[in-house]
């Protein structure tokens, strides 16, 4: 809360108002952060309930726009939404407070759990459970990719990029030749940009 005190006090009333608003933002997003598992779209529906229906901080339309925005920018969708709503409500400091509110509960939980995980894993039945979970994780990742593929309509070149990056990463995994996934993504962006420029260059702008 030290940030809150840094706000220049215009009047005593205005300061209290800002304080209340920031506290409200923090607590609301902390609640969202604490009760949504898995992140992503699960969080969007909770966000809708809290920010649109209850608090009326943003309109449904606006939240939809943020979701679209979040889709094409890096970072978890929930965090993008929190930053945006906070910014709309109380500017830069609102954005900071809302984002922190969303992160802090899970941060504390993980911090606590990480201290015990390795001891925890020595128990036979826990280790067995995690062996099962490991299998589920693989399935879930394949599922995430399939869902993304279905949602988007791709041009032929983009389909080639999907297949190409898949094969490159798979080969890199099997042969243990380390290829950075970020390098693969950047190559994809450059290829797509080049093809676009060549096509448009031919038309003479």
């Amino acid at each position, binding site marked *: 809360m030290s940030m809150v005190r840094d706000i220049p006090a215009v009047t005593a009333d205005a300061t209290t108002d800002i304080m209340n608003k920031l506290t409200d933002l923090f607590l609301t997003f902390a609640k969202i952060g604490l009760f949504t598992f898995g992140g992503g779209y699960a969080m969007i529906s909770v966000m809708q309930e809290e920010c649109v229906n209850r608090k009326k901080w943003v309109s449904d339309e606006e939240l939809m726009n943020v979701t679209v925005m979040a889709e094409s920018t890096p970072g978890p*969708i929930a*965090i993008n939404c929190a930053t945006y709503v906070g910014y709309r409500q109380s500017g830069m400091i609102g954005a900071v407070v809302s984002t922190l509110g969303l992160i802090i509960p899970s941060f504390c939980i993980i911090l606590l759990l990480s201290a015990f995980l390795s001891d925890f894993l020595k128990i036979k039945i826990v280790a067995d459970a995690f062996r099962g979970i*490991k299998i589920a994780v693989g399935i879930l990742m*394949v599922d995430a990719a399939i869902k993304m593929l279905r949602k988007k309509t*791709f041009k032929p070149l983009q389909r080639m990029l999907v297949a190409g990056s898949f094969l490159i990463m*798979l080969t890199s995994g099997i042969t243990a030749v380390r290829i950075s*996934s970020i390098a693969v*993504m950047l190559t994809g962006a450059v290829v*797509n940009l080049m093809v*676009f420029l060549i096509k448009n260059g031919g038309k003479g702008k």
Partner: protein
Amino acid sequence: MIYLELFLGFLKVGFFAFGGGYAVIPLIRDVVMSHGWLDDEMISYMVALSESTPGPIMVNMATYVGASQAGIAGAILAASAVVLPSFFIILLLAALFKKVENNRYIKVILGGLKPCMIGIILATGVMFIGKNCQEGNTVVQLNSLNTALSAFQVNHLNMFLTVFLAICYFGSAKIIKKGISPIQLIVLSAIFGMVVFA
């Protein structure tokens, strides 16, 4: 220096994590493995832990890696590094959303980034499954294609469980309206793990 490495590593993850959720696992795996912080075994535990605790997976994983490498300070650094890029990008976009959205160069660049991301996630998922179905996957380290092929022995129990869970997961969507959710699959897999491997 570990703090700087954590911060820069997760800053990189934050910049390229389009779509959030599982999309981020390959990126984090990349950073974590290249520094030798955790192995595949621990990474999948970490994914399970991040999935079964509240909050965005990306932040949870960053916190976990940071905490395991450099305590609380490491956790704070990693978690903030992973959030910072998207934080500033959204602030920027909140101001100029309409203009940026329709910029065709940005569209083309994103149009190249996203398909690759999907390919990478798919490959990582397939590798995860492949490693799980392999005998003694905790001991055997794959160093070249030859040793990989000669060392590949199927672990029937794991393979059976993989097929079974996949059928449950993908099949349930056809029977029940929404199907099994990821968190339900994890619970289910834990239960079956306890039964099958006991």
